[in-house]
């Protein structure tokens, strides 16, 4: 074998290496952003939105913040989805991230059995501090109410996309009997507060408490200022 031939072989090998990388990247991107076989939207958007904000259990932000914003929502509710996409980012960026308020979403399962399945899945993610990634990603991939899209496969895909560390543990936890009591407690609270539908909000601080239904960010901002 002469030198020219060696150079040709080396060049061909380098070309094949570049092609191999291109194939790997294309195949990876084709499957990327999905949770297994289920295609998910906005995995990166949710990760970016929540990046650097502490979350513990169902609370996003500093749990010791003076003002507490508590939402009563249903993961199947399209208006909650709209709030999550259009208004929540402002609330998170301008009130939660700076530490002015904490933000809690309580699972008020008003729309049907699939809301309960979804709520259990989200609360199980809370045990691994990925609750907010779970609910935000769920809203961005929400289907039609009680249409049957809330399957084990879908819920697992959301868990993977949300970065739940231990999927097996999450899968066990979402069937835990104790979650039924959590959902019943939230339902009772909403009844006591006189809430009429999802999403409803309770904004509470040293200056008092306000209840809002489907608020704009301006409404929430004013309520936070009023009770701060």
């Amino acid at each position: 074998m002469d030198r020219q031939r060696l150079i040709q072989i080396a060049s061909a090998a380098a070309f094949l290496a570049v092609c191999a990388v291109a194939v790997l990247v294309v195949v990876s991107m084709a499957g990327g952003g999905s949770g297994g076989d289920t295609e998910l939207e906005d995995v990166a958007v949710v990760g970016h939105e929540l990046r650097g904000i502490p979350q513990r259990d169902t609370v996003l932000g500093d749990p010791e913040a003076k003002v507490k914003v508590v939402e009563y929502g249903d993961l199947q509710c399209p208006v909650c989805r709209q709030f999550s996409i259009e208004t929540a980012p402002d609330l998170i960026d301008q009130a939660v991230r700076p530490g002015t308020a904490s933000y809690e979403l309580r699972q008020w399962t008003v729309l049907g059995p699939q809301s309960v399945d979804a709520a259990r899945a989200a609360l199980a993610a809370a045990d691994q501090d990925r609750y907010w990634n779970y609910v935000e990603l769920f809203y961005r991939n929400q289907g039609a109410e009680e249409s049957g899209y809330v399957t084990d496969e879908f819920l697992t895909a959301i868990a993977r996309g949300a970065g739940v560390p231990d999927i097996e543990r999450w899968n066990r936890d979402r069937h835990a009997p104790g979650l039924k009591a959590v959902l019943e407690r939230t339902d009772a609270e909403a009844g006591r507060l006189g809430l009429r539908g999802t999403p409803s909000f309770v904004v509470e601080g040293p200056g008092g408490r306000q209840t809002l239904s489907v608020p704009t960010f301006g409404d929430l901002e004013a309520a936070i200022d009023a009770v701060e």
Partner: protein
Amino acid sequence: MDGACAGGARNVATPQRIWTGFHERIATVRSMPAERVLRAIAGVLALVGIGVAAYITVVEAGGGSPQCLAGGHGCETVANSSYSHIAGVNVAVFGIVGYVLLALCALAPGDVSRIAGVAASMVGFGFSAYLTYLELFVIDAICQWCVASAVLMTLLLIVNGLRAFGYLGAELVSSPRPAHADEV
């Protein structure tokens, strides 16, 4: 004057002159490591890489996620993202295959292993660069095990690149012969 012109002519860098002159230079330029040293370094790096990729594969096969030694959820987030699998296969498995191939290239002498080593390193480096991009800009989480693998792949590309550039075709050069090329 004539001597200066003649000297300039000798330095014209035609591809043929670069090729034939290279092995002459490595006989005298002490900074080029011996091929045996480069192969040893590549072998050690590949073995460490096998360890990293095997750890990730074994932990995930057991249903868990790799733990970031520095704390945080970066490793879990990356491992549980959909980008951690290609066609249903964990990327760490591709890593094991790649590092084993690189270890074999380090063990074997000759031009085939020199070319295969640099080609495999290029694939590993390119794919590691893509995965690092995903971590920084898509998944928004950093896994220190992935960073470790990317560093290993970068070092392997350098070492295998030096080996190929310095010693490819060394056996073809009968005189002068490369000072350090080993054919064990």
